[in-house]
């Protein structure tokens, strides 16, 4: 089954200059394995389309069942220069929750937000 990432993982973004780091945390270790396989740096950048101007680096953080995506050129030139209303990009992490992940039926019970499946 294809589900939105929000059922598989939670996310938080942080800012440093013109770089946003968007960390994605799987709800269970089994879901983390799916994420590692499917949410590559290339797909991540493509999903954000023109909102990320620079390269994206993916760091795997196995002890947290998490991946940290460091996206350069994502904050309109930097927090203070940005013309975006969300200068710090604190809402940027929500976009990736719409990324579609293929999840086997056997892991259905691992998913959050069952009422929206």
């Amino acid at each position, binding site marked *: 089954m294809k589900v939105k990432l929000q059922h598989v993982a939670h996310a*938080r973004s942080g800012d440093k*200059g013109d770089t946003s780091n968007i960390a994605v*945390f799987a709800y269970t270790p089994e879901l983390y394995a799916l994420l590692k396989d499917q949410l590559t740096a290339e797909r991540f950048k493509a999903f954000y389309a023109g*909102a990320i101007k620079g390269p994206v680096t993916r760091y795997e953080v196995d002890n947290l069942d998490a991946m940290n995506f460091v996206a350069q050129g994502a904050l309109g030139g930097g*927090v203070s*220069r940005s013309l975006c209303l969300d200068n710090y990009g604190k809402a940027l992490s929500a976009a990736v929750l*719409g990324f579609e992940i293929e999840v086997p039926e056997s892991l259905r019970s691992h998913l959050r937000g069952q*009422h929206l499946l």
Partner: protein
Amino acid sequence: MKDMIRVGSGSAWWGDRVEPAALNAEKGDLDYLCFETMAEATVSAAQVRARRDPSFPGYDTYLDDRMKAVLPHCMKRGTKIISNQGWINPDAAAKRVVQLLQEMGHTGVKVAAVNGSLITEHVLELTDTILENGLPTASLSSTLISAEVYQGAEPIVEALKAGAQIVITGRVADPSIFMAPMMYEFEWDPLDHVKLGQGNGLGHLLECGAQVTGGYFADPGFKDVPEPWNFGFPIAEVSRDGSAVITKVAGTGGQISLQTIKEQMLYEVHDPANYLTPDVVVDFTTAQIEQVGPDRVKVSHIGGKPRTPTLKVSIGCTEGFIGEDMFFYAGPGALRRAQIARKVLEERFKIVNLKAEDIRIDYLGLNAIHGDATPADAPEPYEIAVRVAARTKTREEAAKVGREIDGMAVSGIAHTGKRVPHQDRTREVIGVWSSLVPRERVTPSINYFVS
């Protein structure tokens, strides 16, 4: 030597709430209460304000609010305070705290002011290259406002050793504010990167306050959090070995779970195995976290590597102005009216010859926040704000944005909603750049004041 100390958070940024700080002071049974109040551009913005407004004392504009809320409890309990509310004038902030203590009848309290972070006059000699773009820092000479070094925990520890009960600093790396008590109480050597890695990692978990106790976290149906209007600020029960339990005052809302700890652990981190701070290089990839009770998570085994030979310098520069404003559409056809309104503005900006380095016209409600990342099939909203921003060299150019939006009142499209143009719709841009300075070239100095 104590086996365990309780270090609590009093703020995560300048605009943070004051009530949870007072609660931590009153009910947190804290050995230390730590305040973080600075963003990247805080020092430069303070410098600009100080130039224009001679009455601005140069420290946290909420210093009085915060100190009045916590000092009575801290004095009663014997809680020490460490705070970066000194901004560009730690001495003045320390003197103000002494004054407040005297007004409350607390005499004999030693307050330290840690200086030495500001290196504006020497920054071009001390630094070579701008980290973000590789250009020489000398290229910033004509626009430079302020430069400050991120200091580590050592000067704070020195002040504590000298008997200070309250330590006010200028720019210090955020986690270092929270680690200084651990170094002091447990007599950690400044070069013991194993201990300091844990301490700085814990500092990182505490520095953003409620972001580890349920703030910036709740998402109904997915991540439910009790009483999100009533967050407590975090408290770390730190053991001598550098492990800790993160908790909060009983009866507050929010939650401390593996999830909230994880999210904060990677917040504003790039390479999780190499998080650079002035004191140590932190490695979060070895961290172990365990829920040991309700709203209690044990954090251990955060890694540490030897500190780098350099300190980060933040350089603030004038970079022109931003003009911005918005107006509104609602009801059936809101988007089509917003779209033609955008065209009207684009044409009028040509007529008035707006000279902008960048212009952004968004439909707030549809694509103003995620921009190009907005899905192509996002549904049309019932209400839309047309939000316009332009970055310009001069304030006069920036003001054209608001002036043309004024024009949408009677010369616009049907059903245009508008705000009364009461506020100044321009603001100054302070660009922030980074560089590195050899650590031996930076000398902290500490002044002491007694109430």
